[in-house]
């Protein structure tokens, strides 16, 4: 899917074997985390709703592996993948999804509001595009404090039609803020196809309106995502500023807990599943003799085990004490 003129170096090549394997490990963790969450959904144990990231793993892992621990991310309603990729604890995440008192948000946020401030994850957001301004603001802090950090502001194709998309990208562009706006174009805003939602073929073309770089990449190719984000993160740190990256991917599951998926065909879903980002990456690692088939199985099984432990941890955790209800509204 090469369709840009940027000279993007293959920084991925220079990564250690451990780091490359770590990326696979994280992709498996995200995949199996969502498998277990889906089981909870079927058992009626997810109160309210949640949005699964299955099929989009390369996007979160490629992008977040390309920035530092001290850098920030702003996530979306489909945020489990970002949260795991940024280094969240699986047990505490799963506990939050079940509304338990020891979850990341003490059970007050749930799936749509998971945040892990300790890993500089500024949180998921229940409002489509709601985090775009917050990402600019976090980048403004980086500029004012001259701390050389960058921000990834994740959002979806749907959010690119929101008014705040324009306001935030415009603001970030005039101030040259170190923020990477990363559009995970998974082809549908809830049920509405991108084809029905915009009069152009690429979200990245919108970058021209702001005089910033815009690029569309294969969001199912973790190496391409990694290299692209590395390239633009470096440019952000050099003061060049904002970029708009469109990462083409696909969500395998429905929009949320309740979705009859009448808007797409089974064939279309199957076509995209053939582009499975995990399969693609593991085959690369095996072909390049970085891991063996057996090692791949072991990595996946370890991930499965960790997720099972997280499920057990979450299930045996306590619900929050009702005295918590009016706490944490204000800070001292």
């Amino acid at each position, binding site marked *: 899917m090469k369709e840009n003129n940027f000279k993007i170096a293959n920084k991925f090549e220079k990564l250690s074997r451990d780091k490359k394997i770590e990326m696979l490990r994280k992709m498996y963790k995200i995949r199996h985390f969502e498998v277990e969450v889906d089981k909870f959904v079927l058992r009626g144990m997810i109160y309210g709703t949640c949005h699964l990231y299955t099929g989009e793993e390369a996007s979160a892992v490629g992008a977040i592996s390309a920035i530092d621990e001290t850098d920030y991310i702003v996530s979306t309603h489909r945020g489990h993948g970002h949260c795991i990729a940024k280094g969240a604890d699986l047990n505490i995440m799963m506990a939050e999804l079940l509304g338990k008192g020891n979850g990341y948000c003490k059970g007050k946020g749930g799936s749509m509001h998971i945040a892990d401030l300790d890993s500089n994850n500024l*949180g998921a957001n229940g409002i489509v595009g709601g985090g*775009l*301004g917050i*990402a600019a*603001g976090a980048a403004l802090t980086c500029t004012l404090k001259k701390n050389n950090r960058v921000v990834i502001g994740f959002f979806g194709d749907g959010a690119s039609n929101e008014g705040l998309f324009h306001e*935030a990208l415009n*603001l970030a562009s005039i101030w040259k803020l170190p923020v990477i706006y990363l559009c995970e174009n998974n082809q549908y805003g809830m049920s509405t196809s991108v084809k029905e939602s915009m009069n152009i073929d690429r979200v990245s073309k919108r970058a021209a309106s702001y005089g910033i770089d815009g690029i569309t990449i294969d969001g199912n190719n973790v190496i391409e995502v990694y290299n692209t984000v590395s390239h633009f993160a470096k440019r952000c740190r050099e003061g060049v500023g904002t970029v708009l990256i469109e990462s083409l991917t696909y969500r395998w599951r429905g929009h949320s807990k309740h979705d009859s998926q009448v808007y797409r065909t089974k064939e279309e879903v199957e076509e995209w599943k053939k582009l499975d980002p995990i399969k693609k990456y593991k085959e690369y690692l095996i072909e390049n003799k970085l891991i063996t088939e057996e090692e791949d199985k072991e990595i996946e099984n370890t991930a499965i085990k960790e997720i099972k432990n997280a499920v057990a941890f979450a299930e045996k955790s306590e619900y929050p004490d009702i005295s918590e209800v009016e706490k944490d509204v204000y800070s001292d």
Partner: protein
Amino acid sequence: MRELTYLEAIKEAIRQVMKENEDVFMLGEDIGLYGGSFGLTRGLFEEFGKDRIRNTPIAEAALIGAAVGSAVTGMRPIAELMFSDFSTVAWDQIVNQAAKIRYQFGGKAKVPMVIRTAHGGGMGFAAQHSQSLEALFAHIPGLKVVMPSCPYDAKGLFIASVYDNNPVIFLEHKILYNNKKYSQHVPEEMYTIPLGKGEVKKSGKDLTLVATSYMVQKSLEVANELKDKMQIDCEVVDLRTIKPLDIDLVIESVKKTGRLVCVEEACSFGGFMGEVASQVAEFGFDYLDAPIVRVASKNCPVPYSYVLEQEMIPSSDRIKENILKVLGKA
């Protein structure tokens, strides 16, 4: 003793906190060289530079969003919304983001930011530049709402708002900005007035007038006139902040006077004084010798024509009539 206007007091507060704390910066529309729509930031741009007095495009949602993002990551932004009416363009960022972040993240984030904005009518700005929207803000858990009535309070409350670790909506009445009639002594040194503490602006024994912002000044004028001309001794309670609300101070006053008239500039239907009246009825019923009465704006958008605008907003005569009615002297 030097006297400052309301506008000068707020400007001095901004200058002093910005000098004291490097994490404080301002962002807003036309606040740079132009000096802000009401001239409040004039000179600050030259003094602090473009990085700390950040002129933004006309993009209310993005500028409030940027304030939220910078606050969560360690800054103390002061965002200016030119008119409080424009808050509606940034409503998601105020209501769903700024106000909710702390709670929905389980108390692990702080959002120390101030949204300063000019509110109120009486200047012919008509329906979209004159509203009193305090009840909307006060209704949202997570926001604090400050409504200073005079220069001294404005300075102390502003400094307290900047150092508060929560999103604070700081409502500045545009009629008060430059009117020298309301100038008063304001100490040069920095001081704070705690959010959530009202003040008795005039003590009295016959009836309690509770008010906010410019209506405190109007209530005081009426109270002084009634004392001089009719020997009616009203107590005037200034809430200063409506969230947190110092209901104890109101009830304490009602305990003494037995009568309560609530004065506010917002439309009466669903107005904030409905909350005050309800709490006094619930927790101070035994002290009441007469029904609680509210004096508020009529229930229409703020009209342009001077005669209509004055008819809508509570006038001194209307406050007076209601006081006399409650005292059985109408």
